[in-house]
């Protein structure tokens, strides 16, 4: 009897502990959100979005150049990373022999695990040294390289959820392999692939390490793509470790803007997928 009681008590206690662990894990998200909303919300204003950073010591100013810079970096990253990622995904799911596919999949996973700071070193050696200066395009390329495995792996998973009976039906109607892939399979997976792209872009929007010595930073507007540029994550880093209270205030504001963008993309992607899974 006492032994059974002990077992029951152990059961209740341990199950309770796992619930606490789940609660603790999710509450970290809410703590981060709460701090950003309280501290960032108090210091966000129109000037933050439109003005340039003021010189050290002057209160006020904004991060307009960093917001534009981040947008440009993400656009370059998308131009490089999305086509490569999608094409690789199509190859893996539609054309590649199984053994080749699993080998390439493994390489993608490894590429995904490469620390982003190492990608930064790579792009520094690849572009910054030959060009002899830091530039927006170098930063964009670094982010694009990070996108490839993220978008490649998730797009492939989505492509593989398209039932093979659809492919067979198309082939039976006399369509070629290429027609089947690009007229039937890819269009069917398109919403999910757009989601994958959104998630990948959201992830690199917050990447800081690969930008530190590719795009560097800039306290002014950066025309074109050939000059160093400010970006939201690098500004947050620079301002957060600075000794000036006004810069800390702006770091919180920038953190709130960045996190809002990233979470909005994540939630939107989640909703799209949820809807599809509910329907399908």
């Amino acid at each position, binding site marked *: 009897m006492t032994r059974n009681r002990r077992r029951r008590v152990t059961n209740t206690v341990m199950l309770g502990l796992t619930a606490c662990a789940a609660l603790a894990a999710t509450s970290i998200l809410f703590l981060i959100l709460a701090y950003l909303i309280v501290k960032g919300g108090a210091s966000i204003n129109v000037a933050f979005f439109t003005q340039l950073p003021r010189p050290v010591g002057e209160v006020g100013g904004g991060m307009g150049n960093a917001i534009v810079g981040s947008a440009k970096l993400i656009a370059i990253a998308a131009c490089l990373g999305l086509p490569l990622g999608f094409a690789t995904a199509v190859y893996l799911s539609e054309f590649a022999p199984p053994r080749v596919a699993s080998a390439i999949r493994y390489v993608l996973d490894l590429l995904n695990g490469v620390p982003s700071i190492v990608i930064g070193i790579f792009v520094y050696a690849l572009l910054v040294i030959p060009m002899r200066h830091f530039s927006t395009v170098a930063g964009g390329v670094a982010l694009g390289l990070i996108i490839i495995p993220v978008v490649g792996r998730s797009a492939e998973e989505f492509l593989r959820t398209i039932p093979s009976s659809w492919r067979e039906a198309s082939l039976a109607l006399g369509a070629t392999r*290429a027609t089947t892939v690009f007229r039937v399979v890819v269009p069917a997976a398109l919403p999910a692939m757009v989601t994958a792209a959104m998630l990948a872009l959201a992830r690199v929007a917050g990447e800081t390490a690969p930008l530190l010595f590719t795009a560097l930073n800039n306290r002014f507007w950066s025309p074109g793509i050939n000059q160093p540029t400010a970006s939201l994550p690098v500004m947050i880093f620079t301002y957060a470790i600075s000794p000036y209270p006004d810069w800390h205030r702006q770091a919180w504001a920038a953190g709130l803007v960045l996190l809002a963008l990233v979470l909005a993309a994540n939630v939107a992607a989640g909703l799209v997928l949820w809807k599809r899974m509910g329907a399908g």
Partner: protein
Amino acid sequence: MDAAVPILRRRRALQARVGDLLGHWVTAMCAAVVVAITVLIAYELWSSSAMARRLFGFAFLFEQHWDPVAGRFGAAPFVYGTLVTSALALLFAVPLGLGAAIFLAELAPPRLSRSLGLGVELLAGVPSVIYGLVGLAVLVPIMREWVEPGLQAIAGFLPLFSGPIYGVGYLTAGLVLAAMVLPFIVSVGREVLLAVPRDQREAALALGATRWETIAHVVVPYARVGLLGGIMLALGRALGETMAVTMVIGSRPEIALSLFAPGHSMAAVIANEFTEAADELYLQALVEIGLVLFGVTMAVNGLARLMIARIRRAGGGR
């Protein structure tokens, strides 16, 4: 007219074959480019650190003095910092993450499991610089005023908890890292636990085991390779994580036994000093640290993926 039909048909067939080949080879080329990029990264790191590797050899990893001005480059403080912070991160994140994964996979009703799961996914999406910002502004003061003095009062006789308190240091960096890798452990853990066949659980319950006994003695052992894979994946992240660690570790290139002491990590020293590296050897030493980091994370991730793939194959149905 009649003669034209076979020609048209032949042209169609040719077009179809060309289209197929084009689709196949264009996508295959892109895949090849991706593989080539990975190889190129390894090659660039290797060749850009050639001079440093020749000059320092393996002793680089064990040499304790990092003094770029005097031309002395030893990576031991950074290797030590990376290992200690990653170990601390796993120490905190593994019990918490496995507990949460068990709750999500085994106990929570589907709706709750899905919304908590979404919360965990979102946590994984938070940029690391934001972890650093919150860590620096919120966690560091808490550690300095409350946690570290408290620990010192209780266990100050241990060298791990002795010495002056700054707030920034190994322990704080380990905590921030723990929060960052937690989502990986939870989401991989949940997935592999769900892949354990239903009849395993039912058999244990039918023998009279409690829910917890079923989980601890049947479900978790069955999924252990996959769980370990998730932990390795988290380790890979922790080893290479840069920004959050850079912001809270204190950036002092010395080895200290105390967890309260400021230290440095491999990724952090690259982030801090790469743009300041004035001479070629300094830069090469930093690239060599990057090379080591690349090699280690590749090995850890490679192993992790193999382990997760194994449990996925073994699991099959639910």
